[in-house]
């Protein structure tokens, strides 16, 4: 069996799905791309059993066949070739692949295509279509807040909450939380699921360069995302997402409004002087002044900065992990931010102060550290 394909277009499609491949697989077949060749089209699949990605490439081909090709070997070859047509000659009996370029010939050992795990089907799914831009932003704004704790798998993903009025995306690691809500997209009925981090990162990377509509299908156990000629299917995280609404404080009488960039760079500077393990900084609000300080008693480091801000409420002092604040402030893109607080032992809530689009709502919550009074 033979087919002819452009090296660069093949590489581009393969790179889109190659993120699925794991470094150390339990099944050797998973280190391969599955090539399913039909007339004038190839369907390539990569999988790690949890997540499967499929892409289609148009080629010049007359025959049909199926084979698994070693992924790393193929990618490395394609990366080092300038754009040119390549001829693939596949011997399905001997499981050998020969690639012919302008420069010479390369031989790869293949694997039986039928051994490749079947791509899971999403049975009796609910369907939803959203703009690529929306999905990209939803992932980008939330994923950094998700956790890494193996003991609490539900928090290692992003919670998709769909309703007839809006779509809400939530991520938390129990120390910080992000809630991203869009009112310009709706679902036909109320539903929710928890997406693992890995497929979301893969989606984010591809969506960055695409503005097509994404078709989402999901049921209790799996979800699929289809757009252009790429399809991603993954297993959902099983479990109940914590009741996050209950822990977002509603009454926050102390409100701070401040320029985002100056706060961010100030915290970045001050945090250099904080403990290297806890990254703790103190914010002290009084009048229209915000004082940011940090110290590392083990090394006798100490830093203190003052910023102008507008503050409504009672004077207070609150401690945070500066890493969380830096991540959150960097993830927002407005000129000014609001930080709403109630007590030193209660969550602080970050929201963009200006330019929050009508159909987009971002709420970031960060838990303080327990300061000695």
């Amino acid at each position: 069996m033979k087919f002819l394909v452009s090296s660069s277009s093949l590489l581009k499609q393969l790179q889109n799905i190659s993120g699925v491949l794991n470094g150390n697989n339990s099944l050797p077949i998973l280190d391969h791309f599955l090539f399913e060749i039909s007339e004038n089209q190839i369907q390539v699949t990569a999988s790690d059993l949890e997540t499967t990605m499929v892409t289609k490439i148009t080629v010049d081909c007359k025959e049909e066949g199926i084979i698994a090709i070693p992924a790393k070997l193929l990618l490395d070859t394609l990366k080092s070739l300038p754009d040119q047509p390549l001829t693939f000659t596949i011997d399905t009996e001997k499981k050998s692949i020969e690639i012919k370029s302008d420069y010479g010939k390369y031989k790869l050992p293949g694997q039986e295509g039928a051994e490749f795990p079947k791509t899971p089907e999403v049975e009796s799914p609910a369907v939803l279509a959203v703009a690529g831009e929306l999905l990209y932003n939803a992932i980008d704004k939330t994923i950094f807040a998700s956790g890494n704790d193996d003991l609490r798998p539900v928090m290692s993903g992003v919670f998709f909450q769909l309703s007839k009025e809006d779509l809400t995306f939530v991520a938390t690691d129990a120390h910080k939380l992000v809630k991203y809500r869009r009112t310009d997209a709706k679902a036909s009925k109320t539903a929710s699921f928890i997406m693992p981090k890995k497929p979301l990162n893969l989606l984010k990377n591809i969506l960055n360069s695409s503005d097509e509509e994404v078709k989402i299908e999901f049921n209790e156990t799996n979800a699929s995302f289809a757009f252009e000629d790429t399809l991603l299917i993954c297993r959902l995280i099983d479990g109940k997402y914590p009741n996050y609404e209950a822990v977002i404080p509603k009454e926050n009488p102390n409100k701070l409004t401040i320029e985002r960039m100056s706060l961010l760079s100030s915290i970045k500077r001050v945090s250099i002087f904080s403990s290297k393990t806890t990254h703790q900084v103190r914010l002290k609000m009084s009048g229209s002044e915000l004082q940011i300080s940090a110290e590392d008693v083990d090394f006798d480091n100490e830093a203190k900065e003052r910023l102008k801000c507008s503050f409504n409420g009672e004077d207070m002092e609150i401690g945070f992990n500066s890493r969380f604040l830096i991540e959150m402030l960097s993830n927002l893109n407005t000129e000014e931010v609001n930080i709403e607080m109630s007590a030193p032992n209660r969550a602080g809530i970050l929201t963009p102060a200006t330019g929050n689009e009508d159909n987009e709502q971002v709420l970031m919550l960060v838990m303080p550290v327990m300061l000695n009074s």
Partner: protein
Amino acid sequence: MKSVLHLDLDSFFVSCERLLDSKLNNRPVLIGGTSDRGVVASCSYEARAFGVHSAMPMKMARQLCPHAVVIRGNSGTYSKFSDIVTDVIKSNSPRFEKSSIDEFYIDTTGMDRFYGTYKWSKELRTQIMKESGLPISFGLSTGKTTAKIGTGEAKPNNFIKIDEGEEKSFLAPLPVRKMPMIGAKTNQKLHLMGIQKIQTIQEMPVELMTRVLGKNGHSIWKKAQGIDNTPITSYHEKKSISIERTFEKDTTDINKLRSILTAMAENLSYQLRNGNKLSGCVSVRVRYSDFITESKQLHIPYTSLDNKLIETVISLFNTLYSRRVLVRLIGVRFSKLVGGNHQINLFDDSEELINLYQALDNIRNRFGQDAVKRVVAMGSKGIGRSSNPFNGQPIVIPAHRRA
């Protein structure tokens, strides 16, 4: 050339007691645990004449010297006297190290030309004795080891100066046991090799010492030559905090053990919070009546909250305590300490709990750390310490106990 002054308060605990009660003067005095398991923490020179020495079981000391006055001692009082001495040294010396409650090293390098180090040291000693009323001895030499051994030789209530170049001949006639680093075990090993005097070590090839005692052998050999470049460190960083307790009578009472462990964990957690520290590693130690000692540790996310730490301690104990044998000692240690405060968890830590801990800590700060306790820990008295463990000072070993 380096110059180091070592100061040591003579039979410190006894001297303090004598200041408080002059009836003790010129009488044999024993200070230490008064129970059957107690050991002598300090004894007067009159008692030493009967063969009593510190770290000896109190029972044996009483047999040797039945007419001695036995005092349980109070480490708080001794700390106060120790602080008086520390203040005098602090205000006079450029750089000093408080290596224990009654010992000080002062770096006097470079002072000779301006003050006359020996004269200055004698004046400092007089001033300390005048201000505290406590007898003190010193050794002045070129390194920590020689200075310390010198003080030991000068005692009681005297001083000595070992000049540069004379260290070797000063050390030579002394028994090896006098050197710091040489304890009972090493002493025995050296004796078996036929080494009695430091002189023998001085004349031995360093390779032989290294082969027998490893790395320590090398440093012992160097110190025996009078070479000791250990710097004076003025700050002791706490790497861990711990409490342990030896029972007067061995026990298998699980509830009592759990109650004591809870009290220990509760107290240590308070110390953590008070010192703005977090711990990332908890360990529990059990010594059975047959002296087999087992310990188990667990790494946890950094915290200083009672409930997390107590839970970890108890679950470690439950897996550790497997032999059905009487328990002699139990202890709790928090290590992997970092500066900081507990990061509040959105779902696990309720606001009420955090506020409760802060309120409890406020009560303890005002009325002492025994003012408020968990009910389970109520029965275990006298667990904990009186001072902040994170002030860079050496550990004060309670007078009625010995590490």
